[in-house]
């Protein structure tokens, strides 16, 4: 198995790292959304945080 983009786990990685670990509840809920594309998800994250998307590495 390989890590895949645009999956629940990928969303959780991006949301938890972008919103902060302490907001895991919100990250969990937002990750459950079926985002049409990763671009749509990332632009949402940028809109609510005002910064670039975090996660996906480090």
């Amino acid at each position: 198995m390989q890590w895949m983009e645009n999956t629940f786990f990928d969303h959780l990685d991006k949301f938890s790292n972008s919103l902060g670990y302490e907001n895991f509840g919100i990250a969990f809920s937002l990750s459950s959304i079926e985002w049409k594309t990763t671009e749509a998800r990332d632009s949402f994250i940028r809109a609510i945080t005002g910064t670039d998307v975090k996660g996906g590495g480090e």
Partner: protein
Amino acid sequence: MAGNENSGGMRPTAPQNNPANISATGGDGQSGQPQRYMSGLPYGSGGNMQQQAGAPMAQAPSPVAAPSAPGGLNELQGLLAGMTSIDAPPTDPTIPVSTGIDFGRGEGSSSMPAQYRSDQRDTEALDLIKKYLPDLINATRVSDAPDSYKKFVNYLKSQVI
């Protein structure tokens, strides 16, 4: 079949077709409420219909409804009597007014009782995470799983355990 005025059909002179007979207040213009038969009561209780006949229609509710339940106002006053108003002078001047919140003088939210400290949503989220933690951990074993995700799952583990 014309000629008989009781034979049905549209009669312009019938009372229901006279605009002057329409009440300006609609059905509210009627006096009292209709009597209704209450079934299922013991024999003789049907007399309640007569009591209904004397019951007036309820008035339209006013925008500010005064408590009408007996004792309702007194109960409210009783509850409010034990409360300190927001502009009352401090009962203990040594405790800063900002005690209990995470800014200003005094202790932060850690000084609050547990029921005011714990966020219900976080508790629910933790329950959810406890349920799915094994799956979240399994995903860390997937090849190419980013370190940022692994760190986050480690954080969740520390919260749950």
